[in-house]
């Protein structure tokens, strides 16, 4: 009877320690998950800001202004344009 009690006691202690360590692990992993989720959110925000920055730099009005003023580009006049018709559409003409 006493032997069985001792074995059960040992089992109980092992189980209790197991519970403690698993709880500890859970918390550690949870903290890690939390920080990763925070990071994900942070990156998401940054992505939005970068998108915003990109579209601000790529504003059509800005590109047109730079093309015109700095690169001295312009839309060609009508008499300098030659349109090459695709074969199928050209045959129909």
């Amino acid at each position, binding site marked *: 009877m006493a032997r069985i009690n001792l074995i059960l006691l040992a089992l109980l202690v092992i189980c209790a320690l197991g519970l403690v360590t698993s709880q500890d692990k*859970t*918390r550690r992993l*949870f*903290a890690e998950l*939390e920080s990763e989720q925070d990071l994900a959110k942070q990156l998401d*925000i940054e992505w*939005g*800001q970068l*998108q*915003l920055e990109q*579209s*601000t730099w790529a*504003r*059509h*009005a800005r590109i*047109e202004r730079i093309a015109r003023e700095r690169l001295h580009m312009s839309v060609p*006049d*009508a*008499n300098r*344009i*030659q*349109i090459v*018709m*695709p074969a199928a*559409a050209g045959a129909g003409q």
Partner: protein
Amino acid sequence: MNYAASPVLAPQLPLWRSRLLLALIAGGFLVLAGRDVYLQGLNHDFLQQQGDSRYSRVIQISATRGEITDRNGEPLAISTPVKSVWAIPEEVHFSPQQRSKLAALLEMSPAEIDKRLSEATGFVYLKRQIPPELAERVRALHIPGLFQNREYRRYYPDGDVMAQVLGFTGADDEGQDGIELAYQSTLAGKSGSRRVIKDRLGQIVEDTESIRPAQDGSNLELSLDARLQNLAFSQLKLAVDSSKAKAGSMVVLDAKTGEVLALANLPSYNPNNRSDLSGGHLRNRAITDSYEPGSTLKPFTVALAIERGEVTPDTMMATAGGTLTIGPATIHDAHRFGDMTVAQVIQRSSNVGAAKIALGLPAEAMWDMFESVGFGNPPPLNFPGEASGKVRPYKTWRPIEQATMAYGNGISVSLMQLARAYTIFADDGELMPLSLLRLDAPPIGKRVISAATARKMRAMLELVVQPGGTAPKARVMGYRVAGKTGTARKEENGGYAAHKYIASFVGMAPASNPRLIIAVMVDEPSVEDYYGGAVAAPAFSAVMAGALRMLGVPPDAPLTPLVLPPAGSEIEEGT
């Protein structure tokens, strides 16, 4: 002595004493049990709550508002988090040095900060919506009593170009105008909450329950094309500036699907900085304002007459006098040309001719025509403040009114309605529904006139841009263009203003199989040439040429350079 029988050692205890003791102990147990029932049963919720409040927290999970993009995925409106700095004035303690640093960071004067702090007790915003990097530097000053919270701010990269279409949101991220308001329920996110256990250091150690997951707002893909929108906006600006006009609008529709590809309005504003705004800047005129369209309405009367077999494009109309008298009123043409065919009535925009055609039609049929192309009803866009225009019931029409309605007086429409109505000519007789959202499949149109009539109308409308028509400036190299000018007097105080006009042009290209419909309206051009053909047609031509090139539409006309007639040589029109 018998010591063993000592009365002390063998006392004869009275029975009541042991019973009393038993009763006391039992009583004690009862009290404990009662307390137990009280704490565990009756008072359980309160105590549980008290316990929870010491480690368990409900935290908000914020949701972001959906993005708005154009049809190619280019972002038009994005929410990004910003910080607002607030303070509890009584708890704020800072050195003069800290104060001047804070003032510099917030771009306020130190005196201004002091004023803010003395204004209220308990809670005061120092500055709202500052960028997160700046907020981080404010935090680094470690000033007690100063706090920050997170807010979202909406940015519109395209600024004034898209302003009235997109609208804007308020400080609490709620749509206030335009698409932002119309699709508020789609765009808005639902913030969620969850219950967690926090430890002594305030770190979350366990998730106990998810009360409500956060739902980010859905993204919205508009039918607009940012490139086309920019082109339309810049050309409209050119037209409005060069004609010294008060305002202007332009609508570009995909003729095949009824999608709105561009929708520009002037005057405009910068939605990222709305400090000096008035209603005039905010209005999306193309949708919310109705006006008397003038001659751009003539094709509908003519189409009805052709559909009913009353006339053909070659029928001669007796327009020789240039005037038509109905009762006390007289209708004038801007020029006298002699008798014209129906096609020439359209080409030269003859009021007398259109009035005579209208008088040969029953009022009810004309009303039906206007009704079935969508006049008098708000366009199916679901946009805030849509104008429905005004078409009076046909039973109240007098003959003179029926005649003037043929050329667009006594009836009002919005530019959007007008552009949509022209889909019956572009789509072989079918009226297309409109959409501000990108469509995956073309919608089903509603037949209004036969395909044969629509083709005849397109052929007549092509004459308008030919030499001898009202709008040779609307031509586009390499493409056949069909359209109609309008120059309407503005209504004012119940009558017509003497020198205030609305110049417009509605057209489509390529005429052999129209891909785009563009409607341009310029309000009160104050130069000498205020006609639709002089003010609105060049803007139409420039946008159409650019748009057809961007969309890669194959040309349907010989590629000979256009020789534009000198300024002012187009035929003037009366309405």
